């Protein structure tokens, strides 16, 4: 390779021209998937799969009914130490951010109802936890580690997933605030 040879600038120019043509051709003939085509998959950049669950107090919550609101979705069990550590921060988020819907889903097929209730009471958590009694929602969200948290924007798109914990209150407030500020 020798830049003094007339061939090098020509080769470089040809490469750049080919690259520009590739960009133009792919922009015109290989369109990127449109935002409207986003499938419901539990991964960042995709629509959050819809579900309906009943809470400890008997209230029914459907995820799609919360469209237009930022949603923080957390999967937990009573026997998981990081779940216990992060729960006060999640409660704080629920109390201090009215624009954020906080959904704390107890993976009930891996937990006992009385243990979950005791866990909330002994840690002074007054969140109305949702009960995933048959584990279908945690399977739908492919939860492989506990806790796992999903930040969902106002359009219902999963923007961030945090595997494991404990999640810090700074991360909770930082991520939800930036989503709330989005149009």
């Amino acid at each position, binding site marked *: 390779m*020798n*830049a003094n040879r007339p061939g090098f600038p020509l080769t470089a120019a040809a490469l750049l021209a080919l690259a520009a043509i590739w960009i133009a051709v792919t922009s015109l003939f290989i369109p990127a998937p449109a935002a409207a085509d986003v499938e419901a998959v539990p991964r960042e950049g995709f629509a959050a799969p819809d579900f309906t669950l009943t809470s400890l107090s008997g209230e029914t919550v459907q995820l799609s009914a919360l469209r237009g609101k930022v949603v923080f979705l957390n999967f937990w069990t009573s026997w998981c130490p990081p779940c216990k550590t992060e729960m006060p921060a999640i409660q704080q988020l629920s109390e201090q951010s009215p624009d954020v819907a906080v959904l704390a889903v107890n993976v009930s097929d891996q937990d006992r109802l009385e243990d979950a209730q005791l866990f909330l009471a002994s840690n002074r958590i007054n969140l109305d936890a949702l009960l995933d009694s048959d584990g279908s929602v945690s399977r739908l969200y492919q939860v492989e580690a506990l806790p796992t948290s999903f930040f969902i924007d106002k359009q219902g798109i999963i923007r961030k997933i945090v595997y494991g914990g404990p999640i810090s209150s700074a991360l909770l407030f930082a991520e939800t605030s930036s989503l709330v500020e989005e149009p």
Partner: protein
Amino acid sequence: MLPVVDLGPLSIQTSGLLLLIGVWVGLLRTERYARKLGLDANQIYNLAAIGLISGLVGARLAYAAQNAPAFSRNLLALLSLKPEMLDPLAGMAVGLLTAFIYGQQKKVPFWPTLDAFTPAAAIIMIVIGFSHLASGKAFGAPANLPWSITLWGTERHPTQIYEILAAIVIAALIWPREHQKWAGTPGVRFLILLAASAGARLFLEAFRGDSLLIFTSLRIAQVVAWLILAGVLWLIARRLSSQAGQPAESTNQNGESR
């Protein structure tokens, strides 16, 4: 896909674990190659360590600065091990700038040092491909091809595998060996890595399913890659022509400049 590895009570993100291994292997390789190039391996190691540490600190501080109200509630969160609270671009900028300043102060030769890091960068790029495969990031657009992979219920381009293959080809291209005539010009090995990587991204971006767009259909990553490619080709031309105007450099047995 294997986004998380459970080690006892710990859930570790596979992508982060792979990147750590990649950086470690890359640094080992850099030390050995720096010696071959006649550079002070300890100085190069210190340069890398300073760049990495300052990059991490910069990434956390930049994230905290963008989310100051959240961090003002809990300053200890600055010390959190969570990789989600990092601004990667800012971290990269701070790390590179700090390493550059350190290198200038210690009079570390600029272009040969970049060459010393080139094999490490090539290894890390292969590892990034594997980390994308594990996490499901950089996924492909839906496609019905014989080699499509089923991801989340849809047949897609295996863009992470394309990325790994491209990185392996680029590593083979720039890997130090005999009879590389261009290797006599310091910096060219590194610049070729940059140009080839930009070219690969520009080509493969067309098959991704997560592209950001401008003007309705233009992929931003392709435009940025084209600009990088143009800048790097110009730099290669400059390096080669400036070298041609100087007396021939002494080279070692691998055709590498001293």
